[in-house]
């Protein structure tokens, strides 16, 4: 099975250098992202976190090839990204399965685009679905699947073409907390088996720490890289690690970084003094703490 043999971790390097993206409005150009640089080493799991609207999805979409940078460059293995392609698999938050195709049909789609013949497509799809524990559902239509199952199909579909990198845009954002934890475990397992580079966008700090080797934290719009944090937690990772002091320390650090930016994103610095005249009982805490 060629699609499942892990690439030697020499492939799948993502370089985003001095990336800037602005769009034109009547008031003039508005910067969405300015001067952001991120790098993903071959086989590395990297997350981008940041307040909503900070442009983390914009960065991911630029790597996918849907957006062209205004300044700077995006390369994958040294090749400039020019439009979307099958070498960069993408998983979307809204599942984005083709409702008119069965689970197997969805997984086969990329291989069909590669002009693989029917029997080898069939074989590849069945193998992948078997690995993801979806064999029983291969002939079901997406509408009859649960959210978690849909996203599993989405990930399998993105991996079927044997991409160099996997891009995930808040893939578990629409799932309930329990399902999300299971999906994180599944994704980790798949990543470890395939040794594929992953660029993962999320606003969930726990998720980012639990999954990643490194986490980039972005500033509020216009988005830039505020910090880069290496996650030294050993692998394989388990749910129990999320209670460890090491994890909680990382969480606290990232949390405060993001909160600063979230407050900025919500409309500038909040002024505690302005609230003094008001009779709001904050239980002795400052507003920033309450928020």
């Amino acid at each position, binding site marked *: 099975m060629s699609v499942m043999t892990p690439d030697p971790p020499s492939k799948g390097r993502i370089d985003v250098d001095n990336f800037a993206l602005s769009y034109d409005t009547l008031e003039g150009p508005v910067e969405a992202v300015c001067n952001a640089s991120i790098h993903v080493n071959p086989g590395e799991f990297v997350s981008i976190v940041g307040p909503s609207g900070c442009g983390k999805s914009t960065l991911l979409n630029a790597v*996918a*090839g*849907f957006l062209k940078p205004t300044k700077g460059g995006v390369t994958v293995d040294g090749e400039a990204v020019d*439009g*979307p*392609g*099958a070498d*960069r*698999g*993408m998983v*979307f938050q*809204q599942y*984005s*399965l*083709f*409702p*008119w*195709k069965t689970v197997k049909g969805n997984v086969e*789609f*990329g291989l*069909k*685009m*590669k002009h693989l013949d029917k029997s080898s497509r069939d074989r590849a799809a069945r193998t992948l679905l078997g690995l993801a524990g979806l064999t029983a559902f291969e002939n*079901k*239509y*997406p*509408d*009859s699947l649960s959210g978690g199952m849909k996203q599993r199909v989405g990930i399998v*579909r*993105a991996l079927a*073409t044997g991409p160099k990198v996997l891009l995930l845009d808040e893939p578990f954002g629409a799932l309930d907390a329990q399902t999300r934890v299971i999906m994180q475990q599944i994704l980790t397992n798949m990543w470890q088996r395939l040794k594929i580079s992953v660029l993962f966008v999320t606003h969930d700090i726990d998720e980012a720490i639990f999954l990643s080797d490194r986490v980039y934290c972005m500033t509020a719009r216009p988005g830039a890289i505020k910090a880069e944090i290496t996650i030294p937690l050993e692998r394989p990772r388990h749910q129990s690690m999320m209670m460890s002091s090491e994890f909680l320390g990382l969480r606290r650090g990232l949390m405060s970084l993001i909160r600063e930016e979230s407050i900025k994103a919500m409309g500038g610095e909040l002024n505690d003094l302005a609230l003094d005249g008001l009779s709001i009982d904050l239980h002795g805490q400052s507003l920033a703490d309450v928020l």
Partner: protein
Amino acid sequence: MESIALRREQQTAAEPATGAEPSYAPTVQSQGGAPPQFALYLRRWLALNRSGLRAVLIGAISLALFLLAWHLLTEYRVVFFVRFTNVPSPSAVYESLTRAMHDSTFFMHVILSCRRILFGFSLAALIAVPLGLVMGRFRLAHEILFPITEVLRPIPAIAWVPMAIMLWPTNEQSIIYITFLGSFFPILVNTLHGMSLVDPVLVRAAQCLGAREMSIFREVYFPASLPHIFTGLTVGMGVAWVSLIAAEMISGQFGIGYFTWEAYSLVQYADIALGMICIGVLGLGSSALIRGFGRLVMPWSRT
């Protein structure tokens, strides 16, 4: 599909406990033989299909009442602003139907109308659907063609009759042309609407999987628009019949519309109602055909 089946199963399981009276369920279990099993099955089936059965029953009663009202109004030749003096009674229409059943000309009228629908509607579908897909995908095509279609669209197909007679060498061709025009615009407009609603995320997903323009068109835009295309086809079929009957009444020599109009001219009042009912049944049947075809090609949609 599956989830509905599952839900039904759950309902079935819950039925003896909730629906049936508590004293009944244990006796069934203790007997356990084939007849009580069947009785239980029947009870469950009735419980599950209650609303469907109810609709059928009420529908049948409603139709029967309609027939009764029709019968009474014509029997007593009621004149209450509306005059039922010359309106044929249901029994007269039934007689007329039995007579028509042994008459090959009646069938000829029906078959000719069906053939005109088949040609006119098929042509409309074969042109309007691809045109709608292209206009929906390529801005330039939309910008060029949309103004023309918007100007022509509000013109009722019947208003085209004189022009059609001038345009086409034979009567038959002009009638087919009228039918074509009637169904063309609903199909085009609905196809365009379907194209405008295609989820851009699906297009991006296809691009990420290596799909090029032609494949995206075939594998994403077309199937995503299919539900709306079928809405267009159903509406188009209805308008095709409207246009056909009007055209046949004005300029036809054969066809069920002509039959109906001729019956009026020849004072065959029962035949007027027969022609109307026949048109109704044909329209209903052709719409059902399209819906059935739609379900066949869109197995993923639940409705």
